[in-house]
């Protein structure tokens, strides 16, 4: 299963992909499109990516997580136009116990946001559009 997808994300399928008889704890994270950003109403996001680099980078992040904790990890990110409430990103981490599952899941979503080359363009309720620049809006979230 590829990381980038043009189709709706299935967090159940991600959890199933990391399941195993010895893995009793599975932690999933689902990130959805929210209806506001920096005080403005958002109606739609359009995601794009640098595909080969995004796939290679998430592969490296998952491998780092699986080295650091005794877990299996899977992640997926949606591309294209998404409406409010649509799932944009999903991570599933499974280990013998919840501690490593929570830790690995948190690690992967944070590193994904920091390192994977994906961009999003917001369409606001007033009809205007803008590229999201987390380095510029961090202070006004």
């Amino acid at each position, binding site marked *: 299963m590829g990381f980038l997808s043009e189709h709706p994300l299935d967090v159940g399928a991600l959890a199933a992909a990391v399941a195993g008889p010895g893995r009793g704890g599975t932690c999933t994270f689902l*990130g959805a499109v929210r209806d506001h950003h920096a005080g403005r109403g958002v109606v739609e996001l359009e995601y794009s*990516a640098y595909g080969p680099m995004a796939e290679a980078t998430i592969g490296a992040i998952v491998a780092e997580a699986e080295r650091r904790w005794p877990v299996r990890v899977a992640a997926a990110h949606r591309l294209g136009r998404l409406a409010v409430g649509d799932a944009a*990103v999903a991570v599933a981490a499974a280990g013998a116990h919840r501690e490593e599952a929570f830790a690995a899941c948190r690690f992967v*979503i944070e590193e994904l946001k920091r*390192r994977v080359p994906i961009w*999003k363009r917001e369409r606001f309720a007033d009809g205007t559009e803008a*590229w999201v620049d*987390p*380095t510029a809006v961090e202070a006004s979230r």
Partner: protein
Amino acid sequence: MDTPARATVLLFARYAELAGADRVEVPIGPGTDVRRVLQGLRDELPGAAALPEAPLCAINHQQARLSDAVRPGDIVAFLPPLAGG
């Protein structure tokens, strides 16, 4: 006579919009680094003048530095601030 050595430049999201192109072929000489490729883009594409002095960049799908050497056939990418998730 060989054809001039070239590299491919990829631009994404806001940078592609500013430059008016998402893929450009550029000539590569001895000692060309990523910074020189960026300067060449600014000279060729008026919109690329709006790119920052030190954007995130990659060579062959791996994060790189502006001082890294660019070789013929390389794929150089300039990346706006990442916004996944």
